[in-house]
């Protein structure tokens, strides 16, 4: 440091500049040495070698019937289905375009056990070092070949149909554990269906994801086969089986891979988190403890005084902080939220606010969102072996199986994945051809002050037109319109509510296995003890209460059990 100070004195550069100059490996910077990324290169090669099974092109009839047993590489899948008691291995593809695509490009060749093991080993090695992990993520962002992409999309559709077959034929077995596992496949299925129908060329990451999900579905069918074979169906017996361990391995590898592909975001390290939490935990806030959080925050955060105005630039929130008589605490919440959001989206999706709007790579945003969804789904599968009571009764057993996936940081990873997946899903449901990445970029472009990092008096919050239209926000000066919007998003009949309930139970299971509490998570993110608030001991119970409050506000009550 002394020398650095001397350097600073002699060169008149700042200490930061002096240290910057010394940082980094000079041999690598000069090109004399290379960073060893051979493990990532192995996975890249394996993904590059993934191709279509030629026999699949002839296995589908003109009316869309595809007999899996006629596809050479589907032995493992067929065997799993037969073990599960499914003798008819014909699936039906209803989309005629897809039928033609399968005839033209086929589906990806399924992997046998050895190939799967080789791929898994390569991925594990690539993920084990931070340099190879970064190289792996970068390589997987590259586009797959057109042929590979088409075959992978066809595989997604086929795998989705296989999941349908498995669910249809096995869901009647009245085995809670098997049914829970099958339910978790639904989210995976949605992800596959969504990708299969997209027009974009897939990335290598998505091709790899298809392969891993197909492997996971095969493993899930094998687990289901345990019950069909007349074996013991208790969750304890199932989770100790080799088939379950195989499925757990597949799911954990998918979660690890997805974590890397999603950019290895560490929520705790996102700048502005502490300020955001402080703003929301401030006791001087205007909301009463009995007031539903959504009612207290949403209208103010979204609409200021409850109305949107339009000028030549677009729709904006009319005088968000002043005319609405918003108190300082709420204003601080909004500002902290925007500041955190800017940092968060940069870390999580690679979207950077710039002087002119936003800088981002749409392909990278897509890969990362896809990885977040797969991460959440992978955790759902891992925690699907038994209900909450089974986890409480067999804590040690589940700790042995899931111990590596039950820390507070894993819970934060899972929460982050749920958050982004849900927002993206809502946006996709409401808007056509308008994704989260574009929405954020448009928001940045319309609101130059985001780049500046703070709002001056007179700054407005503009909302992208697509959002205003899709969510019908021009009517939200009417409270009933706002209720209608909230109801459609997370009302008693919404898919999002069901999804949150399921995932809250997964979080509870995670806390049992990891032996930590919600308070521990709050401690880690810097929220600490919140005076006056009761400690949250169960996320699912807390969610149930919050939803009941929300329903009360919406004018309806829900007694649904979580």
């Amino acid at each position, binding site marked *: 440091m002394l020398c650095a100070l001397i350097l600073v004195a002699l060169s008149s550069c700042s200490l930061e500049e002096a*240290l910057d100059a010394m940082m980094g490996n*000079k*041999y690598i910077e000069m090109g004399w*040495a290379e960073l060893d990324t051979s493990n990532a290169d192995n996975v890249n090669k394996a993904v590059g070698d993934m191709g279509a099974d030629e026999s699949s092109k002839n296995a589908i009839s003109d009316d869309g019937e595809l007999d899996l047993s006629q596809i050479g590489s589907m032995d493992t899948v067929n065997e799993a289905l037969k073990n599960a008691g499914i003798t008819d291995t014909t699936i039906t593809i209803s989309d005629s375009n897809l039928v033609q695509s399968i005839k033209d490009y086929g589906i990806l060749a399924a992997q046998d056990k050895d190939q799967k093991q080789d791929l898994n080993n390569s991925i594990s090695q690539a993920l084990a*070092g*931070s340099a190879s992990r970064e190289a792996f993520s970068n390589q997987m962002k590259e586009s797959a070949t057109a042929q590979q992409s088409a075959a992978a999309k066809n595989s997604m559709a086929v795998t989705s149909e296989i999941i349908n077959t498995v669910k249809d034929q096995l869901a009647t077995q009245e085995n809670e554990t098997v049914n829970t596992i099958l339910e978790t496949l639904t989210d995976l299925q949605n992800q596959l269906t969504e990708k299969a129908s997209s027009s974009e060329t897939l990335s290598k990451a998505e091709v790899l994801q298809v392969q891993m999900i197909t492997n996971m579905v095969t493993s899930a069918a094998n687990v289901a086969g345990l019950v069909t074979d007349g074996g013991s169906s208790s969750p304890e017996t199932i989770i100790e089986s080799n088939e379950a361990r195989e499925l757990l391995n597949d799911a954990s590898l998918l979660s690890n891979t997805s974590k890397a592909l999603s950019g290895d975001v560490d*929520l705790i390290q996102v700048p502005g988190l502490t300020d955001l939490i402080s703003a929301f935990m401030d006791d001087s806030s205007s909301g009463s403890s009995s007031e539903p959080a959504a009612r207290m925050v949403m209208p103010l955060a979204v609409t200021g005084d409850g109305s949107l105005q339009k000028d030549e630039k677009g729709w904006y929130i009319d005088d968000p902080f002043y005319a609405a008589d918003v108190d300082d605490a709420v204003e601080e919440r909004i500002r902290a939220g925007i500041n955190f959001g800017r940092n968060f989206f940069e870390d999580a999706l690679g979207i950077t606010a710039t002087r002119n709007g936003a800088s981002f790579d749409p392909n990278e945003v897509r890969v990362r969102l896809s990885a977040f969804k797969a991460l959440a789904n992978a955790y759902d599968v891992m925690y699907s072996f038994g209900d909450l009571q089974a986890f409480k009764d067999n804590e040690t057993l589940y700790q042995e199986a899931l111990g590596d996936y039950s820390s*507070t*940081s894993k819970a934060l990873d899972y929460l982050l994945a749920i958050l982004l997946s849900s927002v993206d899903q809502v946006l996709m449901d409401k808007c056509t051809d308008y994704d989260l990445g574009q929405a954020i970029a448009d928001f940045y472009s319309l609101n130059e002050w985001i780049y500046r990092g703070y709002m001056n008096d007179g700054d407005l919050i503009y909302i992208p037109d697509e959002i205003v239209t899709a969510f019908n926000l021009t009517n939200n000066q009417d409270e009933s319109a706002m209720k209608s919007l909230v109801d459609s998003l997370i009302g008693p009949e919404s898919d999002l509510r069901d999804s949150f309930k399921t995932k809250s139970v997964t979080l509870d299971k995670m806390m049992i296995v990891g032996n*930590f509490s919600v308070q521990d998570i709050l401690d880690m993110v810097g929220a600490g003890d919140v005076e006056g608030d009761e400690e949250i001991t169960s996320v699912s119970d807390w969610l149930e209460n919050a939803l009941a409050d929300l329903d009360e506000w919406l004018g309806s009550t829900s007694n649904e059990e979580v």
Partner: protein
Amino acid sequence: MKKVLVILLIVLVSATSVFAVDFNYQDAAYLSAMGAPFTKTSARVAAMGGAGLAVFNNQDSLYLNPASLGGKGLVFNLPNAAFTLYNIKTGYVDSGIFDQLLDDPGKFTDTDFLMDNVLGGVLDMLGTAGRNRIATVDAGIGFKAGRFALGIDTQVNLNTYLPVGSGTTDIQLVPQVDVAATAGLGFRFFRDNAINFDVGVSAQLNIRAFMQAFDAQTLISAFTNSEDDSNILDSVLGGQPVAIGWALPLSFGINVNFPFGFTISSTLSNVHLIKGGYNYVVQENYEAFTDDPLHAILSPFTEDTQFTVKSGMMLNLGFGWSPDLGGFEWIIDPTVAIDLVDINGLVKDWSTTNLLARVRAGVELQLFKAFELRAGLNGGYVSVGAGVNLFNVIHLEASYYWNEFGDVLGEKDVDALTIRMNIGWER
């Protein structure tokens, strides 16, 4: 901020001289700590890019190259101490903490500021995957009389490890304590000839202890759940087994000294003749050390070894040049050092990158026998340093340098600042 308390607890843990490592010693992250050779921190060597095998150094020759003990000298180190802080750039400068401290020096004594900003910032910075280190503290005494040298050293390392793909809450605390007694002997042959050579040997008894690793979450939970702060250490450490091990590595060195101040050296270091490495036994918990310290410390020698962690020997080559300036050395005395280390590892896995990773080079300029300026390149990482030697009695040195903490070159660079003080006598 609970994360601040984590750091505080780390410091408390260190103060009790207990250490942590996961006993799943097959795990590469821990294995590297458990079997790593003991290396006394040398501000001079660090500033010179890690080079110095072929450079005469009264203080460090015992540890670097025992052949250099062949040059006569009388040295007393009573004591020498070094403090090294890591992640300077990210944790202290880029975060603005350094500027704040310069603007208001009073903050150096502001506990709240130090707790909230400095320590909290460090924990955030440690949340990047792989190995890292918070600090190293060295303290030792030693002497050299003629051709014989003896040193007794202790070193505390606050290591951390974060599995790849994990988050901040998974930071594993892996403190480590070493106690080493090193003795060496060197001889010079053909002293009066233009070309002469030295040979030397040293032996080191190294006792090393670890406590089973625990993560940040464990500390936070302990703090949260403890009503009495004095019980926190007990609640965190009480159930943790402690591994204590020993090793007896030998080092051999040879120098060939040429006219004009050129020297070529070779050392064979870290030679473990007994079981090939560190031999560990496990105590149930740290109370074994408080209840009967002598028995616990001697346990690796009196009880059956429970596991051994291998530690490989290294063949090293060094080049040094300290030109003879005809009596003007008291004004300016330059030194150049270039080392190639772990040649046997290079032969096993030859590549240009692996070769460059093992090259260490440095220069030193001594002015008026009192001021020292140093710079170097260690496997491609820059290092700089300076020192003040007051009448050969008080020697203060500082060095700032970057190190590779990853498994491969360029994977993870961590910078460090070392301050070393030596009080004694050197002639």
